[in-house]
């Protein structure tokens, strides 16, 4: 079309993430880190820090090497814990999203359930853990139940609020287009809620990691939580720290993993996500319809 007026093309310029690593900053951080670790090492050696509670970093390093390589016992426990984390997380958060959608869909259920939600939300979930064990006995079932419990609420509440808070104007648009209730739900309400659901999932997965530790502290049979407890009771603090750092790494990986997932699923909240999905959809169009004129 030649008779249309030119358009501000700047608005599509995608902001670059601009993370050419700043060497200076990295050096600064590395220096501070090394100084801290050295101070810890020296402090433990000359007795400023109680080596019982603050084992030397070199000892921790040796423990890491032992539990991962020479003795290699951490793998079994890690495997056990992570299995529970994912089972409990998936069960709990899927339940949260499904129930959140159902409750959000019906105003009647919503009104009926609201007081219970408030009461349950105010109750610390972990407090119920011993009851779950009493109910389900020792073993994987009660551990998974505890993790489900801590994973359930964030996705449930977020899904519910995401589903309830639909933009009135968009709703009116759908109504003016003659959309059915089902279409409104699948084409508007649910996708609109996805970013806030994802935020709930992120909280849930972090909670799952704490949940598995609590479960394993209570039932000390296997898993990284029981390993930490055993090491601490035997005053083997270096190995306990080795386990804790393992959890740090897992927590970090979970965070990054969820970021990656959010970028795939709620892509329209990310510049690079939009670019990626947009160009893929353009390729698909070109394949089916040829060059748009």
């Amino acid at each position, binding site marked *: 079309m030649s008779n249309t*007026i030119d358009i501000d093309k700047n608005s599509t310029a995608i902001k670059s993430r601009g993370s050419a690593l700043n060497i200076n900053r990295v050096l600064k951080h590395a220096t501070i880190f090394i100084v801290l670790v050295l101070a810890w090492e020296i402090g433990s050696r000359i007795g400023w820090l109680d080596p019982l509670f603050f084992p030397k970093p070199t000892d921790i390093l040796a423990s890491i090497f032992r539990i991962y390589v020479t003795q290699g016992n951490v793998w079994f426990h890690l495997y056990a814990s992570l299995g529970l984390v994912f089972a409990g997380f998936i069960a709990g958060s899927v339940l949260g999203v499904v129930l959140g959608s159902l409750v959000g869909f019906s105003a009647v259920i919503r009104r009926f359930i609201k007081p219970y939600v408030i009461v349950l939300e105010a109750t610390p979930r972990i407090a119920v853990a011993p009851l779950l064990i009493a109910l389900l006995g020792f073993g994987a079932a009660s551990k998974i139940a505890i993790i489900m419990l801590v994973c359930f609420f964030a996705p449930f509440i977020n899904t519910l609020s995401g589903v309830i808070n639909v933009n009135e104007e968009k709703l009116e648009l759908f109504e*003016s287009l003659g959309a059915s209730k089902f279409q409104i739900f699948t084409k508007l309400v649910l996708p609109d809620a996805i970013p806030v659901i994802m935020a709930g999932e992120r909280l849930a997965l972090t909670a799952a990691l704490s949940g598995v530790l609590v479960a394993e502290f209570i039932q000390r049979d296997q898993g990284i939580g029981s390993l930490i407890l055993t090491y601490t009771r035997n005053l083997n603090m270096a190995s306990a720290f080795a386990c804790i750092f393992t959890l740090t790494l897992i927590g970090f990986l979970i965070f990054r993993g969820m970021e990656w997932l959010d970028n795939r699923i709620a892509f*329209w909240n990310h510049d690079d996500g939009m670019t990626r999905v947009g160009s893929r959809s353009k390729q698909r169009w070109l394949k*089916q*319809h040829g060059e748009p004129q």
Partner: protein
Amino acid sequence: MTNAVASDLVESAEQVVAAQGVAKSFSGGSVIALQDANFTVKQGSFVSLVGPSGCGKSTLLRLIAGLIEPTQGHIEVHQTQVKRARQDVAMMFQRATLLEWRTAIENVLLPTEIRRTPSSEDKNRAMELLNLVGLGDFAFSFPAQLSGGMQQRVALARLLQTGADILLLDEPFGALDEFTREKLNLELLRIVSEVKATTIFVTHNISEAIFLADEVYVMTPRPGQIAKIVPVNLQRPRELSVQTSAEFNELVAQVRETLGAL
């Protein structure tokens, strides 16, 4: 119906929207949003609704769109009473209300998708419409990647994709800056004459109302009503410069007088 075919045909070529004694109140009658509206809109004509906020402009559009029902009187579109949202009437809002998770073209295709699985033809039509509003190059951009004016263009293309011949626009460019608004108004005039649509356009800008319209419905508040219908016989196609003509200013004065703002 069968014995009045001839006269129906004549009528359908003439008036596409007709309101008789239409009133709408809310909150059990305590808020009268609109009272005693009577008008007929001719096929292919452009009507502006102008008036201060709260005078029932949006209420009137919603009534025509079948989103709400009148408390009194009745509204006919193409000689049938409006009872619910219908395919020959489509609406556009002050905000673009695009779905952020859909590309521009997917947004344009939404009205089709609600009726059926879009065919190859539907998709090509959507692309044509994006070209018509000047956004052909942005078909695969997401709303967040577009400026406010571009988002309203997508909304306009989506409006046209419905295939409706009656277009209701509720302050569609009201949130945009003056320059973009003028630009889009000109394009709107070109486009609705190209697709031969009947248009009802809400604004609270008097000059804009007159510049666009064949008829200006001047609305006044408390209670909301159509106080006067002002015909606009300015030549088409119109240039922005018509706004400085004596004839135009005479129309402005007439509208202002009705609004009591002179």
